[in-house]
């Protein structure tokens, strides 16, 4: 393994266990280092990738044929107007591109979600509930219709809950709790999968395993020693 790859392995392991060190319950300099390194790097990366896209698409189009691509010039000017947000006296100029972005964003999202988020979902809820030739399907369809209607009534706040509406509201609340448990389990599955993937990268192959154990021990022991025997030093070096 060459030096650069080894260095990447060590630093990536250090930043991983630095972030994991918050699990000890003790604020420590390794976590502060890892957190600030990650944030700085992430900002730098986002800027570079966005900038690269602007140069390779917008600027390249303009320089190749400015008369045919004059709309790209307007786009670039509107983008540059965003930068006036920095100056208190001229920050009002940035409202123009913000308005364009807001108008486009609102229109692009709402024109389609009327169908996908409302009509298609309602259509998918209109299920055959009277055809009992297949008992399981009919029961499932009935339950889905009941669940959707009762959970919808749970979110009714504008009228007094009485009679059937109150019953529906109560059933909706119970369905919601059942579904929150299921959603919690799915969220847990997702985060666990992420953690397993991370651990797999740290433990396999043998080189990664050795580095991981070494780094983890260094961080845990140093944190323990600082916290137990040198709390004043610890206080000074954490943000």
């Amino acid at each position: 393994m060459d030096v650069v790859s080894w260095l990447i392995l060590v630093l990536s392991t250090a930043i991983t266990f630095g972030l994991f060190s918050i699990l000890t319950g003790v604020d420590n300099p390794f976590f502060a280092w890892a957190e600030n390194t990650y944030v700085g790097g992430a900002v730098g990366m986002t800027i570079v990738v966005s900038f690269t896209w602007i140069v390779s698409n917008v600027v390249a189009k303009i320089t190749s044929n400015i008369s045919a691509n004059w709309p790209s010039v307007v786009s670039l000017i509107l983008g540059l107007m965003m930068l006036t947000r920095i100056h208190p006296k001229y920050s009002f100029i940035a409202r123009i591109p913000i308005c364009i972005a807001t108008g486009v964003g609102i229109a692009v999202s709402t024109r389609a979600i009327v169908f996908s988020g409302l009509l298609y979902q309602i259509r998918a809820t209109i299920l055959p509930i009277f055809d009992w030739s297949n008992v399981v399907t009919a029961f499932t369809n009935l339950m889905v219709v009941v669940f959707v209607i009762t959970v919808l009534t749970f979110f009714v706040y504008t009228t007094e809950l009485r009679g059937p509406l109150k019953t529906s509201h109560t059933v909706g609340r119970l369905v919601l709790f059942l579904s929150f448990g299921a959603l919690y389990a799915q969220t847990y599955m997702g985060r666990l999968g992420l953690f397993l993937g991370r651990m797999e990268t740290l433990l396999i192959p043998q080189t990664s395993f050795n580095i991981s154990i070494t780094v983890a021990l260094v961080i845990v022991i140093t944190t323990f020693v600082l916290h137990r025997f040198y709390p004043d030093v610890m206080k000074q070096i954490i943000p």
Partner: protein
Amino acid sequence: MSRAFKICATIDRRVWYLLIFVLVGFLLLHPVGFPLKVGPEVKTAYNVIEDLKPGDIVLINYDISAFGWDEIKGSALSMIPHIFSKDGVKVILFTDQDQGYIFLETTIAKIGEPMAGYDGFPWYEVHGKKYLEDYINIGFIPGFDKAIAALASDFRGLVGSTDWYGNNIISWLDENGVDAAQDIELILTLDCAGAQSSWVNYWYLPYNTKILNAMIGVSAPGSIVNYDAGMLAGIVISVRGAAEYQYLSGYYGAALVSMDAFSIIQFLLIAAIIIGNVGYYGWEKGREKR
């Protein structure tokens, strides 16, 4: 006995953390091989790719950032080779995340090999498919849902004349008849940020394009709703779905290996909940009453 209940109620959370680390480490290094059942959703997703015909154009979207890569790489490293193994199918790679191109290249490097006479990206051959002959990489386009909407409304205009590496792709797009969104047969979206709703809104609704969605666990509820409404052709949910797909397709990988640890840690959570309740009813509730 009350001492035992008190211990159950007051277990330091760091004990659970240590148990998770130890169990995961042990089971990843020494997997047992618990049996795995393949669900109907994954089988459906598998069949969608199996049914691809020569001449079909597939757009693969890497809606992947580092925070989701470890969870979704199992799906990527099995579904993408499966697509590449289909004869005559052409592939366009794309990403709407600024880190996505890194994982795209990681995937290609893992599943392919460098083309003869070439060095480095993008010149990789994957299952006989060569770069700029059978597949291209148009790279990152910023804007998330706006990029997806813009691709749908003006595909050639937004893609431009070059790929992510500066190679001219006009002839490739012309030869393969890729002019507009309607020419794409299938979209595979690997989601960390819920891009499937944008693909549904801007590609399925107007053009009826088939969409396959592999996603992280947190995005699963939204995808299941759209799958149930018929707007998604297939879904592969998180690591479990990836393991099932790896098993079905034969492209075995880390997701399958991690299923043992996956099972045991979920049992650990159930044990933690039970122990917490035992402690609550045996000690804490009595303390509340007193």
